[in-house]
């Protein structure tokens, strides 16, 4: 099934959200979604997902999700290369569900196996009073749309605090990028 003049290339990604490292928090779950440009379209696989709730084991500081990711994209242009946006949530002292971090990273560009550790950050309250009331009421500052984390515009007005890391593993396969003239690795 070889096409002599392909008009689009395919990007197939599979992998997992392996786990996280948050020294101060426990009992967390994560959500992921993909952000991509106008020229991209997912052809198969799930674009979003929610994981299980995990706790730190005995003597280990690691939180493990082992959450599978499997998606294929089709595109005519590398501009708008897909990014995975991960949001992590957990309970606060009163038991409310609050956001513990947002993070985003581009899907790797070269075929092969890749491991990425991404920093996770939360928006900061503007004043100390707001910080106290949000702690008391359980309603912390959040982004209305987590996809903001994958964009460059409008970020200059946000103040955030980074407080953990999430480890991801990817296996990437591309099809027809060379035929369309794109070089992703040095020859």
């Amino acid at each position: 099934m070889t096409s002599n003049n392909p008009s689009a290339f395919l990007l197939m990604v599979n992998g997992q959200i392996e786990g996280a490292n948050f020294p101060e928090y426990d009992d967390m779950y994560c959500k992921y979604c993909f952000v991509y440009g106008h020229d991209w379209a997912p052809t198969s696989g799930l674009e979003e997902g929610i994981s299980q709730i995990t706790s730190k084991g005995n003597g280990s500081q690691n939180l493990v999700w082992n959450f599978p990711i499997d998606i294929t994209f089709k595109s005519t242009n590398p501009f708008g290369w897909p990014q995975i946006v991960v949001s992590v949530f957990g309970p606060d002292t009163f038991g409310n569900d609050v956001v513990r971090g947002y993070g985003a990273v581009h899907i790797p560009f070269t075929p092969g196996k890749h491991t990425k550790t991404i920093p996770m950050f939360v928006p900061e309250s503007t004043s100390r009073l707001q910080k106290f009331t949000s702690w008391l009421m359980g309603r912390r500052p959040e982004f209305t749309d987590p996809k903001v984390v994958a964009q460059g515009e409008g970020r200059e007005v946000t103040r955030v605090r980074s407080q953990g890391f999430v480890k991801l593993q990817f296996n990437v396969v591309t099809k027809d990028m060379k035929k369309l003239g794109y070089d992703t690795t040095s020859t």
Partner: protein
Amino acid sequence: MAEVHIIGQIIGATGFPQNSLFCKWGVHTGGAWRLLSGLKEGQTQVDMPQIGDMAYWSHPIDLHYTTKGLQGWPKLHLQVWHQDPFGRCQLYGYGYCHVPSNPGQHRLQCTTWRPLGSLQDQLAQIFVGGGPQLRTPDLIYSGADRYRLHTVAMGTVELELSVILRYFDRYGVET
């Protein structure tokens, strides 16, 4: 015409005297280059790290250039600023690095420097903050008029950039 895609992230900064940093960045190219899509300048979020020393921005960069020549290969220039709890901004460093010219994924460390003023300026800076800044930011990435400048080293900015080239082999360019 050949095309270049620069896709990646400004990951963060480390080695600065205080955290609560943000970065203003821009990409400068020569006359033969034309930007087809993407934003060629921007400003990151302000990050106050809770663990460790590194401030994380994870700011995405996605640029699509088309070019008729190799001169003026894109240069990424940065200004690292510090925001204090009162909301005042102070310059912490200038830096630049060339976008890598071979396709693939690259991890870059961009060193930064800050202009050093006279002894009175330095003393005032300890108490009040502020400090000398460049009048025109193109001195960050050009070597033309630098000999009169006296600077001091500041921290490093980490970037991860991937370069995808298209049709470069048609023109006989080896990368």
